[in-house]
């Protein structure tokens, strides 16, 4: 039997050190992930596009931007590895992928979270089998030259819900190579940002709120700079918006249209878009639309090195509400932010700072709210074969209702997390389950 390599030998030690430093705990177990459809289609391994799935390397980023066509081309699905007469199930499989996510074993330390209840014997720690929690079905690719599509259907078995997470079509290379690429549908606006929301996590751990009490039950493991930050904001149907929910430009999915491109070469990208922006699953009940614009500067001309710097402005228009005592009132929720990313060989470093502002808060509600909030997230990752370590720090500073207990530093306002997982698969390491509870307004 061959001896393990030095990198493999120190990987467990590195994981342990990271976990101790971060102060987080979790039982990490592997989840399953289907072979990506694009890798099948182009008969390449996943590392051609990914650093650690779903994180994209520079080639993968340009493949995404080009509407699922090879960078610098308008292949429209031509791969040259299919011969006339070979039309078969492959044509379906090349556009389809599945993913199962979940923890084999989930442990909850309720006693530590509620010592009085533990003493009274009313709460108990428990462990449960929980695989799979979520099944995702992807279909994506290029329908024909310069027309691409993406759909993600997700079934969450824990929440007994099934629906379309994202679905959009793309029209690429309009007016010339990479001059204008249009995306229409339910999409993640920050997909091409230096610190994108969706593609930063080995495992997507969403926030969780009790719908009847607006209690925050679990902090989502997203970059905190991307989160809503404010307690007390509601969508137009009156449902509370979790302060941990990725939102606005950094939303996981919003319906709208955007245009982006690199008309002057690879070094510069522009992006402008319009969204319904009312934090609603479907439809648009507010009277206006939200608008955003972003620019990104890239450098990818040195050996094994690439870097990017991005900035955005997101202008909301009656995209949230607050309670005034006499009912709900619309507010405009804006966000401004910038992010940077540096990659050398297989080491990635990300950072993002955002500033949120709420305009037109009714006088009756103004006393209960700060009108600005900021967030900072930093993340780095480095694959140690066969594992990938991702360390993420986030800081959120924002408003809270007066009657909410003072937030404890290091528990709520700062999330520190370490994720580790097999290079081509995923592992789950939530910050904690049932992290803390606090009452909404």
């Amino acid at each position, binding site marked *: 039997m*061959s001896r393990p390599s030095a990198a493999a030998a120190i990987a467990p030690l590195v994981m342990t050190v990271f976990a101790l430093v971060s102060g987080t705990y979790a039982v990490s177990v592997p989840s399953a992930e289907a072979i990506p459809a694009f890798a099948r289609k*182009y008969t390449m391994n996943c*590392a051609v596009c990914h650093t650690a799935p779903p994180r994209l390397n520079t080639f993968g980023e340009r493949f995404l931007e080009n509407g699922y066509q090879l960078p610098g081309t308008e292949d429209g699905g031509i791969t040259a590895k299919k011969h006339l007469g070979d039309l078969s199930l492959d044509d379906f499989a090349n556009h389809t992928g599945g993913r199962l996510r979940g923890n084999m074993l989930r442990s909850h330390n309720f006693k530590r979270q509620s010592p009085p209840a533990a003493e009274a014997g009313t709460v108990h720690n428990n462990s449960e089998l929980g695989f799979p929690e979520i099944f995702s079905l992807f279909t994506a690719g290029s329908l024909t030259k310069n027309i691409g599509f993406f759909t993600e259907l997700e079934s969450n078995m824990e929440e007994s819900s099934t629906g379309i997470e994202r679905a959009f079509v793309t029209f690429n290379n309009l007016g010339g190579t990479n001059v204008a690429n249009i995306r229409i549908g339910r999409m993640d606006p920050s997909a091409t940002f230096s610190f994108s929301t969706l593609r930063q996590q080995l495992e997507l751990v969403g926030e969780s709120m009790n719908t009847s009490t607006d209690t925050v039950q679990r902090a989502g493991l997203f970059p905190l700079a991307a989160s809503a930050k404010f307690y007390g904001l509601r969508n137009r149907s009156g449902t509370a918006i979790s302060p941990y929910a990725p939102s606005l430009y950094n939303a996981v999915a919003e319906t709208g249209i955007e245009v982006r491109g690199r008309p002057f070469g690879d070094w510069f990208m522009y992006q402008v878009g319009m969204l319904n922006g009312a934090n609603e699953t479907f439809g648009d009940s507010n009277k206006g639309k939200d608008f955003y614009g972003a620019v990104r500067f890239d450098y990818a001309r040195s050996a094994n090195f690439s870097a990017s710097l991005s900035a955005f402005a997101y202008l909301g228009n009656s995209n949230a509400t607050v309670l005034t005592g006499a009912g709900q009132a619309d507010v405009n929720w804006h966000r401004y932010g910038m992010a940077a990313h540096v990659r050398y060989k297989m080491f990635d470093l990300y950072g993002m700072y955002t500033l949120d502002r709420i305009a037109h808060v009714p006088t009756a509600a103004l006393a209960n709210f700060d009108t600005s909030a900021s967030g900072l997230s930093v993340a780095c990752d480095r694959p140690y074969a066969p594992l990938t370590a991702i360390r993420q720090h986030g800081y959120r500073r924002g408003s809270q209702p007066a009657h909410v207990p003072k937030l404890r530093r290091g528990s709520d306002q700062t999330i520190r997390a370490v994720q580790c997982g097999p290079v081509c698969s995923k592992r789950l390491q939530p910050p904690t389950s049932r992290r803390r509870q606090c009452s909404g307004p």
Partner: protein
Amino acid sequence: MMHAKHLKYAALLIVTGLCASTAQAVKPATNRDTLMEGRRIYEQACAWCHGIGGEGDGPAGWFIGRYTSPRPRNFVNDGYKLRSTASGELPTDQNLFRVITQGIPGVMPAYRSLNERERWQVIAYLKSWNSAFEEETPAPLTFPSAPPGPTEAGIQHGRHLYVKLDCRVCHGDNGEGDGPEATAGHLRDADNLRIRATNLTDPSAWKNGASSHDLLRTLMTGLDGTPMPSYANEFDGQEEALWDLVWYIQSLSGQQGR
């Protein structure tokens, strides 16, 4: 009902169209315009892995093999694996065109989406990094034509050659890439990166092609920069034996005669 004469014209049109679609565009002359256009295409499509200077150090290239072979080709200094020329020689332009068009399973996509003129322009540009291309005119080896087809006796002889030539040391007794040298991790490429022995039972992963002619070419030329040597000298004047080995290797995956 369509008249027979119209059917003939339709058939002729289809055949003409097919011929036109598979014919290679005229290779453009290597001049400043060709190189400039080749550079533009290269920087949009190829530089992510091969690097802006062609040294195989693009920002995405490190991930392909991570710490194992292959890494993206270094067009400035490295030799070329996939050729029809003798071991140690440069590839022909057709060899480069073939790789760009068909890709390499597992590691490089097929760039048929670039039109043929664009592919030739890229080839002219990447050759400009290596002055040896100006000094030499690579000539392909002459490959023996295929006999009518494999025979049971020929396949048995091929098996004998497979053992005699120590193919099993890397590729394993049954061709599954699990020979003792491979499993011990002793196989390294020219960059001292660990390299796997090809699984001969899975033709879809063969980087130099999976047809019998592709296999024969690989045996004759070897894969420079890897432990796979050229067997041209061993089979000098023994064309039939060479084909026997080809048939045997193909028999490992049930692909004889393709």
